[in-house]
């Protein structure tokens, strides 16, 4: 349920004062106080829990006066390990709408007190298309029984079709919040949908031409991409910014026996040493940013297009290499 | 001047005032104005009754009582109250001061009852009277903190507060020692003389009789009456 609230002037004043007083050392790192002044002039506050959702919301509200202010809390590192600071929790509580990914992407939801009526979870629209995960550790102590924190894969946005579905949920949530702009939101979203459809065609071309040849993934975060394009992929657990252990290389060698991949897709460029060693084994490394965080340059679409561009380049090159060993 | 003619008074019993069969008759009794007179007689001979009749607290069955221009025997109750309040000063044997008032308030009691006159003036009058009897320093004391002689002097001050034309004193020295007796008698006679007031004082003390202008024996003034018709 989404509350049709507007933030009254006093609430914004409170937010200004409290955040200013309470977050003196952390405002820059939390990125909250910078939002306040802008949001006070807008038609409400919307907080997105990850970058793709933030992007969809920004695109929906693009060029609309007095549209709600869209905020993405700053966090370092893995978004799934993020626990909001005190100021960020206050921001979430004050928001008229909090757009969530769902499917376990926000484990902090279990720890934070929010108004359920203001939450909109995009995974709810994808319930029949979720890919379950089975890689969490079970533990058991005492007679209570075993338990684990398992859920579904949540990087929906890597499948442009699911990204469209997510974007539509975001659009409708914004329309419910500010019905006056609903038509404009949907118009903006139609443009984005076209772009995502084009991206989908482009990626489909890449993988169709790949003909189901095996591919490696550095981490199991590409499930939806894999499913969408029928990629014959296998996942490792290799950190791009760390040298794999000897056991990792051994594991790789074993994998390659049954899964002779010539391309490894990373969420960011690996260490040169790792890339070189992989290359020596005939495996080309190609970064495909998962865009869970805000990219350093450009936006979601430009980052995805760059991903597509790199894949096109590497897959074409690898195709040629394979054809001409 | 006190003038009583052919007065008959019946004693009454109980709350309903039933005839007791006893009474008193006075054919004629006159005390000239400005005279200090003593009234003597044994106990129960009617001296207090006579004072009550003169003050208007008792009603005669017949006859007339006149005190100067007041026809006491024919006055209404309200008129008698005014008569006593403004015209008569009374001193009682048992002082009859009110213990819940201070000494000065006791002296000012007639003002409390009358409710007229400026308080400041009355307060000053009371202070003067107390000063005249040497009790100014006891103004704020309670009566029960004073000696008997002091209490009776306060009672005299109360009686003199309104400058009465008639002073009636019923055995005012009965409970006092010799020294205080004389002080009280001197006070009363002095007041009578200065204001040309008539003083009628009941006393058993023969030593004091020589200080009065006239002495009356009750039996020469009043005759007892007996019978069912009284």
């Amino acid at each position, binding site marked *: 349920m989404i509350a049709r609230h507007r933030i009254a002037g006093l609430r914004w004043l409170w937010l200004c004062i409290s955040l200013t007083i309470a977050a003196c050392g952390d405002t820059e790192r939390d990125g909250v106080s910078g939002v306040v002044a802008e949001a006070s002039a807008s038609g409400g506050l919307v907080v997105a829990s990850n970058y793709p959702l933030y992007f969809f919301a920004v695109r929906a509200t693009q060029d609309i006066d007095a549209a709600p202010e869209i905020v993405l809390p700053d966090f370092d590192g893995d978004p799934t390990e993020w626990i909001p600071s005190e100021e960020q929790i206050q921001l979430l509580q004050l928001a008229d709408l909090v757009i969530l990914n769902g499917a376990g992407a926000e484990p902090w939801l*279990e720890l934070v007190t929010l108004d359920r009526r203001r939450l909109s979870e995009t995974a709810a629209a994808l319930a029949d298309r979720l890919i379950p995960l089975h890689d969490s550790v079970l533990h058991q102590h005492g007679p209570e029984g075993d338990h684990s924190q398992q859920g579904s894969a949540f990087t929906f946005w890597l499948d442009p079709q699911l990204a469209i579905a997510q974007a539509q949920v975001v659009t409708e949530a914004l329309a419910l919040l500010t019905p006056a702009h609903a038509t404009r939101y949907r118009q903006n979203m139609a443009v984005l949908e076209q772009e995502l459809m084009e991206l989908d065609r482009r990626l489909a071309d890449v993988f169709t031409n790949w003909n189901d040849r095996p591919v490696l993934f550095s981490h199991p975060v590409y499930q939806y991409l894999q499913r969408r394009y029928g990629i014959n992929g296998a996942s490792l657990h290799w950190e791009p910014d760390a040298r794999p252990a000897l056991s990792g290389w051994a594991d790789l060698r074993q994998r390659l026996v049954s899964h002779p991949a010539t391309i490894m897709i990373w969420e960011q460029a690996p260490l040169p040493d790792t890339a070189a060693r992989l290359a020596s084994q005939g495996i080309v490394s190609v970064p495909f940013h998962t865009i869970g965080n805000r990219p350093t340059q450009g936006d979601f679409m430009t980052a995805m297009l760059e991903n597509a561009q790199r894949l096109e380049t590497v897959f074409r090159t690898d195709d040629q290499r394979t054809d001409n060993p | 001047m006190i003038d009583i003619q052919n007065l008959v008074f019946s004693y009454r019993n109980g709350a309903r005032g039933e005839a007791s069969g006893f009474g008193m008759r006075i054919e004629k009794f006159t005390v000239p104005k400005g005279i200090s007179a003593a009234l003597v007689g044994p106990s129960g001979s009617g001296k207090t009754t006579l004072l009550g009749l003169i003050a208007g607290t008792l009603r005669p069955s017949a006859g007339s009582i006149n005190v100067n221009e007041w026809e006491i025997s024919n006055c209404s109750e309200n008129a008698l109250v005014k008569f006593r309040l403004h015209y008569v000063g009374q001193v009682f044997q048992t002082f009859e001061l009110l213990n819940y008032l201070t000494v000065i308030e006791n002296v000012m009691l007639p003002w*409390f009852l009358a409710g007229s006159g400026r308080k400041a003036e009355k307060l000053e009058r009371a202070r003067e009277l107390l000063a005249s009897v040497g009790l100014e320093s006891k103004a704020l004391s309670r009566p029960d903190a004073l000696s008997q002689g002091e209490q009776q002097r306060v009672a005299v001050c109360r009686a003199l507060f309104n400058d009465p034309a008639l002073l009636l004193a019923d055995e005012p020295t009965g409970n006092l020692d010799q020294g205080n007796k004389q002080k009280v008698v001197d006070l009363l006679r002095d007041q009578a003389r200065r204001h040309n007031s008539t003083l009628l004082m009941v006393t058993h003390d023969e030593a004091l009789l020589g200080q009065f202008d006239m002495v009356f024996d009750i039996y020469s003034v009043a005759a007892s009456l007996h019978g069912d018709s009284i």
Partner: protein
Amino acid sequence: MSGVLLLSWRYLAHHRAKSTILVASITLMLFLPAVTRLLVEDSAAALTARAAQTPLVLGASGSELELVLNTLYFHAESPPVIDSRALSDARETGLANFIPIYARFHSQGVPIVGTTLEYFDFRGLSIANGRQMGLLGECVIGAAVAARRNLGPGDSLISSPESVFDIAGVYPLKMKIVGVLEANGSADDEAIFADVRTTWIIQGLGHGHTDLDDPEAAGTILNRRDDMITANAALTQYAEITRENISGFHFHGSADRFPLTGVIAVPPDQKSAALLRGRYQANEAGLQLTVPGAVLADLLATVFAVQNYVILGLAVLSLATVAVITLVFLLSQQLRKGEFQTLSRIGASRAYIALLIASEIGFVFVIGFVLATGLTLVTRNYAMQILQSFLTL
């Protein structure tokens, strides 16, 4: 007139003991029925207002009164519970906004109410000092609790075990106070509010412990096989939720089975309310939906009936008091016969003396009335706090 008043006042002031007893008798005679009536009316008004503000309450079948008292006033020892599934099912109807309440635990006699942020909007509660709770383990406290225990943001409190011998059940959880609510003259002033999940942690349905991969936990591992780790009970469990250990907190079992003591239902209109009541009329699945206003009206009808008997008794007592006071005055007049005679001789009319007596009686009654009024107002002022503390015990 001032002479009469002065004489009568002087008399009363001089006879202090008698005057005090008379004034005290009259004060009590006027105060007791007045304060009884006011307290009953005030408490009834407060109960009624809170009940009227709460349209419907969903809870376990059984005593409607107990359900209403627990949900509205957080008053119950071992209240009956329902599963959270009842809340999920209710929400699926879309017929109302449903607000969970889990009011089972206490901290030094003060009820700990597990709920959600919707509760604060519903009751119109705002933060006077500090902020709203944000993380598990945090709580906000009512104004009266803060004042009485001298607590504020930054302080902490600990949940009390349910019984002295409860060593394997409810866990004392140290909670951080992050805010104090504005006083609103209701049971909310006398409560501690936490996220409902925090109260489930108090119950032991959720906990945090040392990471099983942490060397510190090595001594507690019984078995490690593939993806299954078995640990023994020596594994350190946290008695306090902090930012450092919060990510380790998790719940056991299905959340649908987790307990609630009640659910406040706020339907948007009469039709929705009627549909809801029809839905739960059969009391299936051990649930009942009750109207707090109706339940309390029944209770108050009984209270008013009792009040009437009490006031009748007090009225009879008052008559006896008046009779005794009259007797005292009559006897007093007898004793003062000599004094009145003196006054008469000096020049007081019968009317004056009657006025004197009347003034004395008047003073006694006026002072008694004033004292009774003052006592009634003071008692009324503090009575609500006493009443609420009784209701929340």
